[in-house]
């Protein structure tokens, strides 16, 4: 256990129930810590609660018991607009089904969270968006409409979008689900590099064994409980 590192995310006794169609306990008092610069993968069978946990960690789901801290700040119970701000500044997302805005160009999709953050000028933001797309090898697709490119390309655009605001934490739900092994390698390399060189933390829910193996830590879940923390 690397105790000298800073804790970036801490979950304490997370409990989540679903009430539809029948009452069901999806998370059974989960507690764990994630350190800064970690590349954590979360594995487990379908229905083990890893996606549910991810949504709670993302601050989008606020209907749970227990407490969640991000960089030592308690986010449980905060107002939704404040949480939106936190997401914008500190969290980048890659969703399972890529989820781009279909009417916008790939470039614009990447730029939107940065425009919302409004830290850089429009030109700078555009420049940064190009850099991120280049990083993922899809700069040539930048001006195409998001709905007109392949699934793998969309997923990479989504990853570029997650990186644009240089978030402290990047959360991914099956980030390589649509990618071939070559592109998976690219993404894993990028994530490893981000964690190592920039101290960004990556939390990825995945089914992909190759992906999990290459992460710095693998947490395993089963039936709403953590089977192993991976250290």
């Amino acid at each position: 256990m690397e105790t000298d590192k800073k804790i970036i995310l801490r979950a304490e006794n997370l409990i989540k129930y679903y009430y539809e169609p029948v009452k069901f306990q999806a998370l059974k008092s989960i507690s764990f810590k994630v350190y800064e610069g970690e590349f954590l993968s979360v594995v487990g069978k379908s229905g083990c609660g890893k996606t549910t946990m991810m949504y709670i960690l993302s601050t989008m789901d606020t209907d749970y018991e227990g407490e969640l801290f991000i960089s030592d700040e308690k986010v449980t119970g905060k107002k939704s607009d404040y949480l939106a701000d936190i997401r914008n500044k500190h969290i980048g997302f890659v969703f399972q089904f890529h989820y781009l805005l279909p009417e916008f160009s790939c470039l614009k999709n990447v730029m939107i969270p940065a425009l919302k953050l409004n830290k850089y000028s429009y030109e700078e933001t555009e420049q940064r968006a190009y850099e991120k797309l280049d990083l993922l090898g899809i700069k040539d697709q930048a001006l195409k409409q998001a709905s007109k490119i392949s699934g793998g390309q969309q997923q990479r655009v989504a990853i570029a979008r997650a990186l644009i605001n240089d978030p402290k934490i990047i959360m991914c739900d099956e980030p390589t689900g649509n990618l071939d092994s070559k592109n998976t390698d690219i993404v894993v390399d990028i994530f490893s590099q981000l964690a190592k060189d920039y101290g960004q933390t990556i939390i990825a829910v995945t089914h992909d064994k190759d992906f999990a193996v290459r992460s710095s830590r693998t947490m395993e879940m089963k039936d709403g409980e953590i089977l192993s923390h991976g250290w």
Partner: protein
Amino acid sequence: MKFKVNTDIALTHLLTRKRQTLIASLGVTVGIGIFIFMISLVVGFNKDSDESIFKSVPHLRIYHEDEVCKPLISEKISGYMPVIVNPKISNLSNNLINPDKLISDLKHQPDVVNVTQQVSVNIFYNNGKSQINGITSGVNIVEANAMFDIESVMLAGDIRDLLTTPNGIIIGVGIADKLNIQINDYMSVISSIGVGKVLKVVGIFKTSNSSVDDTKSYINLAVAQQLLKQSSSYVTDIYVNIIDPNKAPNYSAKFSALTGYKAEDWQAANESTMAKKQTRKVMFGSISFAILLVAAFGIYNIINMTIKEKMNDIAILKATGFSGKDVMNIFIKETLIMGVIGTVLGLLVATVLIHFLSKVYIGGDVGFFPIDYEKNVYVAGAIIGMVITIAAGYIPAKNAAKVDPIEIFKK
């Protein structure tokens, strides 16, 4: 392309769905267009009917009101029971005492633009055996013209001839036709108290209002006084015009107090016309409001649909850090843009409609259709249009703000 990000997103949504945007905007266009058109119609028509009223009615008329006899002893004194059996109208003259003083007092009042005196006489117009009864007004023709614009309805002759012809008369075209009288002919008149006079026709007018054309005539004040066997200080009515005729009721009490006689505003004198005017206003107002309401539902519907289709986008925006307020802002902006497009087009449509209708010839005393571009109506239309659009967009936008991204992602 350097709009703020919310505006940018709103514009992209609208531009990628040009047809829906246009249809929703056109809903507003039709609503606003018809609204302004209809209201202009009413305003124009009312203006025209007011104008035709003011051709024969002053804004305020000051006269000696007939009074029914009252007991001299007050009822309050005990022991007496004052009774007048079968009371009649007191047989005083209708004369306004010291009219010159009253006129000069009135002329010094603020907002008064025109004051003129006149003597009304019920008379018979005769030519040979044929006889028509009517009313003649003894006037100073120049003053009366300033008030009623008699000149504009003259068919033959000149009103100023009345000044140079003491025994002159200007008659309505209906009287001239029925008595077969041409200009410069002589005709005899007999007043209600039996005084007869032979007068020279110096002018014929046509107002296209047959009840006026068939009965009304103008003579010199002195002749009218002679027809009633009265002195030269005898005046029955003083007419007053003020700057804004719609404010006439505000002045009636004031002028009554000033003169000691009854001052009647034209609205009170023409109650049925006023009632019709009000009815028209309510009728057209409610029809156009209904149209606006339908347009509002159109906008509501389209924004609602847009939001249903954009659930995914809303969820992504929220996940990447857009707050509920931002999402609401985006959709309100979309409605706002549609509202502005619709309203601007609506103003254009209204202008075109008004332009064409104002070219339609109706005839009679109306002439061309009485409709005009009313600035106030345009402003009101634009404001109402925008308010309704924003209200229609607000409800769905508020719902969009509440969208829970988790619910969407799980599907």
